[in-house]
């Protein structure tokens, strides 16, 4: 059952193992591969965007196709790349950090992954089935209603399925953190990454339903002739914008908060210091999440909601700078007086601080209503959000991967390639996006297929495109690094970074039951405490006994596959009757799997005590 044994098994067995696994560590791998694949795809789309904008009046792609690429770039990156990659890290780390043997709902955990994957695949099927969605990642009505073909239907179904997966994942992490913490692991002893995971999951729980409803209404309008957004029948297009941004703004904090957690861990480990102002960090996170729900209309300043609404939302938005600032300064203070080791994980973190600060600054600038009348829907906003998303989320994901790769795969990523990735990506990033602030102010709106000659926009766009290729180079080096490490990377020690938290107290990669005995946690930075007291390992909180483990299951895959097929049928039942076969067939597969799940009791199995005793420590 151990990982070493599984590597010797044939390809078929390994595949089956992954298709049926409910082990959070393997699900983390799945999320990493799935999210990584979509990141490359979204990046490829970004490159197409940049090539099209290389010259004025370019026609590398046609106008309609550009809109498809643009929409799919945004949608793919946010829903299918960034969030799954974040889930990969959460799955790999959180149960270990809180000293749990597994997540609360292993079965649902796997279901969440497969729903995401099939939702993403469904969305991308649109490329081959008459065209991708083309109404922007925000899918504003009435444009998305009038959009011909099935592109937007794929957007609706794909996001609905993937979104269900995300919601399930969020609830799973919430329950895990509430009920599965090791003895002594009180809330205020939880490592910051676990905390941010917890808060992020709350955001998911409360934000996604708004999107779910929005997508339903859009689907009804497009497929069943309802009139939510049909102005002729009294509908209102602004409702969509509210629903989308009530989801959408918390979503951007879903994208950043977990990485704030990652940076907190990385900074504290490599500065050899305890996190400065831990309590403040926790409350800042909560405050950001809380405020994050009250600011959505800052995306709608130009909609015409009136000066009162605009002012309130502007103030609320600016307020978020305060807790975020607390975080930035606490990180700096953690490093102050520390002993800083700079390696790849730390480089990404150090790159993040100035980059994200700039992104946050421009965030506050766009929060100033009247100034936003100029910035809104221009490249200035594009620059703002890539500074926070790439400079925060993507940098953070890279930092996390370099930091936890040993724990996830038992091998250390190559440092030289890691540094090369960082520097090319970092330089390319600033080349690409810094100039876009000025492009926006010089009158270049976003979502422009092309721009005219002689408007002083040429040079800026060229620089921007060149930068994108630097980033692409960096990403390719990272992919090579990952493959190289898998083949002949250096084997990782259990605790390669002299870590502070529980995950470093067990093997790299951990046994499938994580902890042979539940550890007794005696304070913040549980492992560090033991190290300082000279023990270096955690006291078990229980005698060695049988370990209860969940059974693998193929049903999550089947359910998601069923939904995928049903989704296709649903989209096409509008034009073809045969699509009902898909629709009902898919539903049958899904419901059948659900029935199988509820009829067959699944009590899991036990690893007997003597087997555990036989395994070497």
């Amino acid at each position: 059952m151990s990982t070493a044994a599984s590597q010797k098994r044939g390809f078929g067995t390994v595949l089956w193992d992954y298709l049926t696994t409910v082990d959070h560590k393997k699900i983390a791998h799945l999320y990493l591969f799935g999210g990584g694949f979509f990141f490359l795809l979204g990046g490829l789309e970004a490159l197409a965007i940049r090539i099209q904008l290389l010259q004025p009046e370019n026609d590398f792609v046609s106008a309609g196709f550009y809109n498809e690429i643009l929409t799919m770039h945004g949608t793919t990156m946010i829903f299918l790349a960034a969030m799954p990659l974040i889930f990969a890290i959460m799955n790999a780390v959180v149960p270990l950090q809180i000293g749990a043997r597994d997540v609360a709902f292993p079965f649902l955990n796997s279901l969440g992954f497969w729903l995401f994957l099939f939702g993403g695949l469904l969305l991308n099927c649109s490329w081959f089935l008459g065209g991708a969605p083309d109404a922007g990642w925000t899918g504003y009505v009435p444009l998305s209603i009038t959009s011909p073909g099935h592109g937007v239907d794929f957007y609706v179904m794909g996001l609905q399925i993937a979104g269900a997966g995300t919601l399930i994942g969020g609830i799973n992490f919430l329950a895990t953190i509430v009920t599965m913490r090791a003895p002594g692991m009180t809330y205020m002893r939880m490592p910051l990454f676990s905390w941010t995971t917890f808060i992020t999951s709350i955001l998911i729980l409360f934000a996604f339903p708004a999107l779910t409803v929005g997508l339903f209404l859009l689907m009804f309008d497009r497929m069943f002739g309802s009139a939510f957004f049909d102005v002729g029948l009294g509908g209102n297009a602004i409702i969509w914008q509210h629903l989308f941004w009530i989801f959408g703004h918390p979503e951007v904090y879903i994208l950043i908060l977990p990485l704030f957690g990652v940076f907190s861990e990385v900074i504290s480990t490599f500065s050899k210091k305890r996190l400065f102002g831990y309590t403040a960090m926790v409350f800042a996170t909560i405050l950001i999440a809380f405020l994050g729900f009250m600011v959505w209309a800052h995306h709608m300043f130009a909609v015409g909601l009136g000066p009162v609404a605009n002012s309130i939302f502007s103030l609320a938005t600016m307020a978020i700078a305060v807790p975020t600032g607390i975080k930035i300064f606490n990180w700096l203070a953690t490093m102050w007086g520390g002993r800083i080791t700079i390696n790849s994980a730390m480089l990404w973190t150090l790159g993040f601080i100035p980059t994200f600060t700039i992104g946050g600054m421009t965030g506050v600038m766009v929060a100033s209503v009247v100034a936003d009348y100029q910035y809104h829907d221009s490249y200035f906003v594009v620059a703002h959000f890539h500074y926070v998303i790439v400079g925060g989320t993507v940098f953070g994901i890279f930092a996390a991967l370099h930091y936890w790769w040993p724990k996830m795969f038992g091998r250390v990523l190559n440092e030289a390639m890691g540094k090369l990735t960082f520097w090319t990506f970092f330089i390319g990033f600033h080349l690409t996006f810094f100039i876009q602030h000025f492009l926006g102010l010089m009158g270049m709106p976003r979502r422009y297929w092309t721009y005219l000659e002689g408007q002083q926009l040429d040079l800026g766009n060229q620089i921007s495109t060149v930068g994108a290729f630097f980033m692409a180079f960096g990403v390719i080096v990272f992919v090579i690094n990952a493959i190289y490490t898998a083949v002949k990377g250096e084997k990782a020690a259990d605790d390669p970074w002299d870590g502070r938290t529980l995950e470093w107290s067990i093997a790299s990669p951990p046994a499938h039951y994580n902890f042979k005995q539940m550890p007794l946690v005696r304070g913040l930075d549980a492992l560090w405490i033991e190290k300082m007291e000279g023990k270096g390992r955690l006291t078990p909180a229980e005698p060695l006994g049988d370990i209860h483990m969940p059974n693998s299951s193929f049903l999550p895959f089947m359910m998601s596959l069923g939904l995928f097929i049903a989704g296709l049928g649903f989209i096409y039942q509008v034009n073809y009757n045969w699509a009902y076969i898909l629709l009902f067939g898919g539903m049958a597969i899904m419901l059948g799997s659900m029935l199988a799940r509820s009829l067959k009791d699944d009590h899991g199995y036990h690893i007997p005590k003597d087997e555990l005793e036989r395994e070497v420590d």
Partner: protein
Amino acid sequence: MSHDHSLNPETMPSEPEKATQEGKNKFIGFWFFLGGETVLFAALFGTYIALRNSTADGPTANELFGLELVFIMTILLLTSSLTSVYAMYHLKNNDFKKMQLWLGITAILGFSFLACEIYEFTHYITEFGFTFRSSAFGSAFYALVGFHGGHVTFGMAWLIALMLRNAKRGLNLYNAPKFYVFSLYWHFIDVVWVFIFTVVYLMGKVG
């Protein structure tokens, strides 16, 4: 830990639904889910409130709604909430047969509610020509009330499946959380209905 979760008077914990780790997880996880459902219904309510006057020359709320039927539906659903409380009472007393009985009554009440709702919708469609496509108001009304009805339908299917699956097994620590979580769900549906009859029907009548 014992592998056999079945209950007997000596091992009967006071809260069988939370006696195992799995039970605790289910319990907590389900409450979280309900937190999310709150926002889901809020979004539908919000849409309804924004569009309730957008009748596009079709029938208005005041013209459509009759209070008698809504009152009956309300009483049916509220009572079913109480009967599911009785079921949980017997669950805690480890009295499986009585629990099944009260759950059965809950199901009957739930189905009666659904029947009324179906009658109501067909009434609007045939008598008033008021459909999902008539106006933005129509869309919003059917979406909100229909979503709730969908939840009731799903709840019925869930309840029947639970009762049948466990009919021969009696209570144990493996299925107690399942019954408990169902009752939470059922109460939540009732909560939503309270707001529906208030905001949609009563306020629709008041204008």
